[in-house]
């Protein structure tokens, strides 16, 4: 009895599964022809935009939306925070697949843009008559880093957080170091200073970048120093990994020395190591200035193998951009809002409110008054013109994860030869970079 009922239910299940499979296949093969207005770049009307949920960007975003809406009552913007999720990129990716992405997202990570483009989620801004020219006039040479392989812009380079070294002046003084002129410009100096700090017992670690395995963590240890060591060489050039050379090895060996000598922590710290005095230094961008309000800190450019004039030091951009999404119905309005939100006036307000750097050329001269009034931000304004971006293309995250896994093994946990590990992962990345 029992067995027969099991058999029967199995049969019912099989029929049901077959039916569902049929539906699934039909759903996959069918459904051609998306929105009718997909190609129309001139339509105007109300649009929705998403912005980041951190307090200062939110303040700027609301102000921008209000300013636009006051002048364009027939093309109102509805602004909202990016819905919560593990990361903004996942939320946006899901929205693209579901077909309900907003018109503009003022927090599009360059590492995700290649995938969004492949998914058909983004509008090619170069298709607007003044698309490429607007972007290039605003951002200058740096804009080129944000093109895809065909030279098209699927993102508007918006703002950067050039990564530098923050150091805790109080801890430096406690360790007997000069807090106004810290010796941090060369690798040797940096390590010697780190050793002094840890030996003096002022903090458990000299510096504590996240030692965890997430792909994006390489943006805050390898990338800034590699950009600095090479004078702005990207990770991948002409489809080939660049970093498996002496410079790359030198950077990796520098970090490995810090980990080997326990000057950097191998274990993730719960909370902010710099704010909590667990580390005497941090490797961060200008967003952190307002966050580290309670710390008496100074900032210097990232170290280089030999002392480089701070005016020539490159670093990682930590940029966030704006994408115009294909699900948007009123793309004409969206493009105009994009230009409005990145106008000289709005960029100035953004700089003032958030302390982050609009990706606009000649930043220090355009907003000379601001930088005169806020000297802490001056170095960043200058640094913003010398930043390197993550590699483009649909496999960026895969490439970065491959690098991170190799880095974790050979640099953080000190297994095997650093140079060999970079060579191996470069071979792998060469393959990934050419895959569609």
């Amino acid at each position, binding site marked *: *009895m*029992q*067995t027969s009922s099991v058999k*029967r239910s199995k*049969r*019912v299940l099989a*029929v*049901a*599964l077959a039916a*569902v*499979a049929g*539906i*699934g*296949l039909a759903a*996959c093969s069918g*459904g*051609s*022809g*998306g*929105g009718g207005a*997909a190609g129309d770049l001139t339509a105007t009307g109300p649009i929705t935009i998403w912005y980041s949920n951190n307090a200062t960007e939110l303040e700027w975003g609301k102000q921008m939306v209000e300013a636009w809406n006051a002048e364009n009552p027939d093309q109102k913007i509805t602004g909202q925070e990016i819905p919560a999720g593990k990361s903004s*990129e*996942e939320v946006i*990716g899901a929205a*693209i*697949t*579901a*077909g309900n*992405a907003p018109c503009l997202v003022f927090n599009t990570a360059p590492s995700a843009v290649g*995938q969004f483009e*492949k*998914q*058909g*989620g983004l509008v090619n801004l170069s298709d607007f008559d003044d698309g490429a020219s607007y972007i290039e006039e605003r951002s200058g040479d740096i804009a080129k880093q944000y093109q895809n392989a065909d030279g098209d812009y699927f993102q508007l380079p918006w703002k950067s957080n050039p990564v530098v070294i923050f150091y805790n002046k109080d801890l430096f003084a406690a360790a007997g170091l000069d807090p106004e002129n810290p010796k941090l410009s060369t690798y040797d100096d940096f390590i010697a200073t780190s050793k002094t700090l840890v030996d003096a017992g002022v903090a*458990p670690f000299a510096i504590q970048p*996240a*030692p*965890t*395995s*997430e*792909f994006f963590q390489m943006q805050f240890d390898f990338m800034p120093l590699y950009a600095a060591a090479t004078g702005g060489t990207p990770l991948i050039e002409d489809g080939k990994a660049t970093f498996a050379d002496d410079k790359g090895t030198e950077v990796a060996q520098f970090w490995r020395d810090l980990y080997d000598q326990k000057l950097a*922590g*191998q*274990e*993730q710290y*719960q909370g902010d190591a710099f704010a909590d005095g667990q580390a005497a230094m941090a490797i961060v961008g200008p967003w952190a200035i307002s966050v580290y309000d309670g710390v008496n800190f100074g900032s210097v450019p990232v170290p280089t193998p030999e002392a480089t004039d701070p005016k020539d030091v490159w670093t990682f951009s930590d940029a966030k951009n704006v994408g115009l999404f*294909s*699900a948007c119905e009123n793309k004409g309005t969206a493009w105009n809002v994009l230009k409005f939100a990145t106008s000289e006036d709005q960029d100035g307000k953004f700089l003032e409110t958030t302390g982050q750097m609009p990706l606009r050329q000649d930043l220090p001269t355009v907003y000379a008054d601001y930088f005169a009034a806020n000297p802490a931000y001056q170095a960043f304004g200058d640094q913003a013109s010398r930043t390197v971006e993550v590699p483009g293309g*649909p*496999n960026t*995250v*895969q490439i970065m*994860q491959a690098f991170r*896994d190799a880095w*974790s*093994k050979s640099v*953080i*946990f000190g*297994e095997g030869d650093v140079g060999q590990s970079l060579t191996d992962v470069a071979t792998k990345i060469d393959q990934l970079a050419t895959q569609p």
Partner: protein
Amino acid sequence: MTSTVSDPRAPVPSRTGATGPASGKGKGKGKGKGSGSGSPRAKRSVAHRIFGRQPLGLLFSSPYLLFVLAVFAFPIVYSVWISFHDFFFAAPGANPDRPFVGLDNYVAAFSNPAVIRSFGNVGIFLLINVPLTVVLSLLLASALNKVVHARTFLRVSFYVPYVTASVAVVAVWLFLFNGNGLVNSILGPLAPSPSWLINENLAMPVIAIYVTWKQLGFYILLYLAALQNVPKELYESAATDGAGRIRQFFSVTVPGVRPATLLVLLVSTVTGANLFTEPYLLTGGGGPNGASASPVLLMYQLGIQQGQPDVASAIGVVLVIGVLIIAFIQNRLVGERDS
């Protein structure tokens, strides 16, 4: 041991009584009609097979059936389909080519050493977690069953970790097990180096113990329920036969809760195989060096972060098959055997 349990319950009936109460009315009637009537009977049995004895029942169960089809059957079939195609998520109007690629995604997935390693990791996890869960929850449930005072308090205490979000509890464990955490402070010079969560040999065992501890309350409840169904008389007669406490536990309690044991085995294996939150949070993305990466964590990295849902689906399909095989073996070893 199994025979001693099933013997008293199933006295061999005489042949004539074989149809018994269990064999249902419908079947008896069908037999009464005779077997030579040919096609009408066949027709009836087809309808009978599809709609069952109570066609109305299908109507009542249809909302749930639809739910299962929509949120379980459809995705699982779809993911099998994805795993055999060159697939990525795309905007509704994009319509990219999605050619059939045979086993390419499976080859891509399992030529990646990290994927092989993750299956090894989850194997280690299950080897520690599942036996520990069964033993501890049965022991604690038996003890709780005998406790007279503070019963509710104890039950709630065991249950609280289970209902607390893993994200919150993970933070507590981080404070316990990180380099200068409580555990290492207590251990002093005996503390492992490198510390627990960044030690390739210890990260997965710590996660396994963490999950065991966290889920224990749920399995204790299952066992507590099962223990209520073990007849008191069995303990009394065992005592009469001179069995001590330990003997009673092994000869009466353990066989008496066997269905619950099977359930605990299956559920802990299935949840264990789906391990994600702990390596994601406790060891910072499957660290150190992928020593605590689980297949589901890699599916997340590949499918969601890296835009390769096809390869991720291939891993998922293999994982499902693996879990089914383990469940089948568990069912064979522990489950009730139908005669």
